[in-house]
């Protein structure tokens, strides 16, 4: 602002003296003074620009009082005193500084009576800065600030008339200053509001978009853009703790789940996310400024150029962290920025977490679909219908557990041999170790091989061949390859176990297997089963066991093969506490000689 703008810059009023023209001078002075006041006042009222108003007020005061320096201080209670808003001449006050105007006699901060202060009456902090005259600026009851002036250039003290003039000037200009201040406040408020609206827009924009995205890389990129755009920052780092599904595992004793870097940008590549850094961040609840902290982890962050670190908490545990370098505009992070960054950090955390959960859910559903397909395929591998057999009753059933199991059974009618026209029946049962798709595939292999030997992986099985024999009703040849020994319940109730055989199939290549032979007579019941029957658990974690199975067979052996199967399955279910799903496949083949 230059002097040409001050249309009211009148020639300085002559100092009051004792010349013969004193009376005339006095009158002229008063007239000049009045005109100066009027012109200054109307000039200031014409503008709402604070700088213009303050500058002209100062220039008028300086020129009228022959003072070389002056300043306007504005009352800023929130900043703890009076802020230097405008200066003219070489004052010892820098624009923008805030002065607390307390001294031993009174606190101007609390007590401002509106009277001009001169000489020793000027508050000490101002006197020290060369102020000789201070005039309160008040608009009604509202305290606006002070117009302060240095001593007169002539070295003379201020005359009462001069003080009166400048007091009137201050008083008449106060309204214009007040208006300009209001406009400035409004402008600041508007801008703050615009800033808030912009922050809300950013969060809204982002929450919409992030909700629709589940690729982690894309989410990270959006977070980067939002940070860089909203904060004008380049260096940034977003860390996410690994899965917090098992919150109990993250006990105070154990090591903390480490942070993973999800996003880094703007030269944040050289920051190593160490366990110590995780420890340091997780121990905080609020904003951290690494430069103000002690410890190697904080030092490393500070050296890498990070100004602030925000721990993002979820259910009272730090689950993510956002670290930022300086704003490129040089502006500090304000309270509003920090609030925004917490919101953004939480949004990013929630979105990333949801994306991961969704990904897991999709994977799980995909797996379940696969399992359902495998189970269908497995069911098709089992005999859809048992062959008709003369002289024996046959029944077979398998109940798969929740997952795809590895139980397999088959009943085949073999063509008679040339030297022996009698009917031959082949019974097979197997339980592939392990479950899932791989186990059921192996089971399919077992079936395809048609013989229970030389299979990769492990399986246990029993092959039994029953055929007519001259002396007895039927002969049964069997090989037990590490399977639960089938139960043969004689008509009289005695229990025999078919144990002859060898190791689990596939455990050792080239293993030898023995075969056993038993004869079956009328009333005998043979039950071949998998461990799903004996190892069925009740709610007290007890197994059904072989004794209960034998008892169940014995109790129901007088009914048909189908009836025995029904009864045993019913007993197992009742024991396990139906309708809870069985932990393992339950498979049983029953052959009964009626």
């Amino acid at each position, binding site marked *: 602002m230059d002097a040409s703008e001050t249309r009211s810059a009148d020639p300085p009023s002559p100092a009051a003296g004792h010349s013969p023209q004193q009376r005339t001078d006095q009158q002229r002075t008063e007239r000049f003074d009045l005109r100066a006041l009027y012109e200054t006042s109307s000039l200031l009222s014409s503008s709402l620009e604070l700088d213009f108003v303050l500058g002209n007020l100062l220039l008028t005061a300086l020129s009228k009082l022959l003072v070389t320096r002056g300043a306007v201080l504005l009352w800023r209670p929130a900043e703890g005193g009076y802020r230097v808003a405008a200066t003219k001449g070489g004052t010892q006050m820098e624009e923008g500084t805030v002065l607390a105007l307390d001294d031993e006699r009174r606190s101007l901060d609390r007590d401002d009576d509106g009277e001009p202060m001169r000489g020793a009456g000027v508050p000490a902090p101002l006197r020290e800065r060369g102020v000789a005259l201070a005039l309160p600026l008040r608009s009604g009851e509202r305290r606006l600030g002070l117009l302060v002036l240095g001593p007169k250039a002539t070295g003379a003290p201020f005359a009462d008339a001069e003080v009166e003039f400048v007091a009137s000037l201050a008083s008449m200009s106060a309204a214009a200053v007040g208006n300009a201040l209001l406009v400035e406040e409004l*402008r600041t408020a*508007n*801008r703050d509001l*615009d*800033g808030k609206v*912009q922050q809300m*827009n*950013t969060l809204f*924009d*982002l929450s*919409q*978009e*992030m909700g629709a995205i589940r690729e982690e890389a*894309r989410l990270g*990129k*959006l977070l*980067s*853009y*939002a*940070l*860089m*755009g*909203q*904060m*004008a920052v*380049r260096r940034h780092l977003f860390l996410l703790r690994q899965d917090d599904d098992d919150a109990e595992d993250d006990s105070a004793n154990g090591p903390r789940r480490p942070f993973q870097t999800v996003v880094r*940008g*703007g030269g944040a590549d050289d920051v190593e996310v160490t366990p110590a850094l995780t420890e340091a961040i997780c121990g905080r609840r609020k904003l951290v400024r690494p430069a103000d902290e002690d410890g190697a982890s904080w030092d490393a962050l500070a050296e890498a150029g990070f100004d602030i670190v925000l721990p993002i908490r979820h259910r009272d545990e730090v689950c993510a962290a956002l670290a930022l370098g300086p*704003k*490129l*505009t*040089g*502006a500090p992070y304000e309270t509003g920025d920090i609030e925004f960054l917490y919101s953004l950090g939480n949004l990013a955390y929630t979105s990333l977490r949801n994306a991961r959960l969704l990904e897991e859910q999709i994977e799980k559903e995909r797996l379940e679909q696969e399992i359902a397909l495998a189970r269908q395929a497995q069911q098709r591998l089992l005999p859809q219908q048992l062959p008709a057999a003369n002289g024996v009753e046959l029944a077979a059933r398998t109940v798969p557990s929740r997952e795809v199991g590895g139980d397999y059974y088959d009943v085949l009618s073999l063509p008679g041999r040339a030297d022996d026209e009698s009917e031959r029946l082949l019974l097979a049962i197997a339980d592939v170790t392990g479950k899932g798709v791989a186990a059921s595939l192996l089971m399919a292999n077992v079936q395809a091989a048609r013989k229970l030997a030389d299979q990769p992986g492990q399986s246990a099985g029993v092959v039994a061949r029953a055929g007519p024999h001259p002396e007895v009703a039927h002969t049964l040849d069997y090989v037990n390859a590490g399977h639960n020994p089938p139960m043969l319940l004689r008509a009289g109730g005695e229990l025999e176990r078919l144990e002859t055989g060898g190791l689990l199939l596939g455990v050792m290549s080239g293993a030898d297997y023995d075969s056993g032979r038993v004869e079956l007579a009328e009333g005998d019941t043979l039950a071949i089963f998998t461990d799903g029957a004996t190892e069925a658990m009740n709610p007290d974690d007890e197994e059904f066991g072989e004794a209960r199975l034998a008892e169940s067979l014995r109790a129901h052996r007088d009914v048909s093969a189908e009836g025995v199967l029904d009864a045993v399955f019913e007993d197992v279910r009742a024991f396990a506490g139906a309708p809870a799903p069985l932990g393992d496949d339950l498979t049983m083949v029953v052959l009964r000689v009626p």
Partner: protein
Amino acid sequence: MSNFSVHSRAAHSAHDVAVHVLDLEGELDAHTASDLEAAFEQCRAEDHHRIIVNGADLDYISSAGLGVFMAYVEDVREAGGDIKIANLKPKVYNVFDLLGFPMLFDIEDTEEEALARFEENAEDAPEPSDAPGENRIA
């Protein structure tokens, strides 16, 4: 449905400095930021380092959109070029201004002025530009 598009074209200043112009149209937000990203990527792939973003038809920009400028400007400047911005609508300029971008980017009223700035010295770091008068809050 995306209501944002980027068209790129070549331009030459009076003294034949080759500049690449990206004309933005519509609303640049978190959803469409990837389109601008792709355009800058293409500029990089084709070695266009003097870029003017013309916002004559840009109706809206979000912080995520501004972030894309931030993400690419450093690389472009390191390659001896710059991203200059021209022809912003007042509402859009206001967002740039609010977030302090006039300190970081050369923002000109017209594409011609932006071209002229490239002419001055393509390798100069941009100076803060003045706000168009109509964007001052009265």
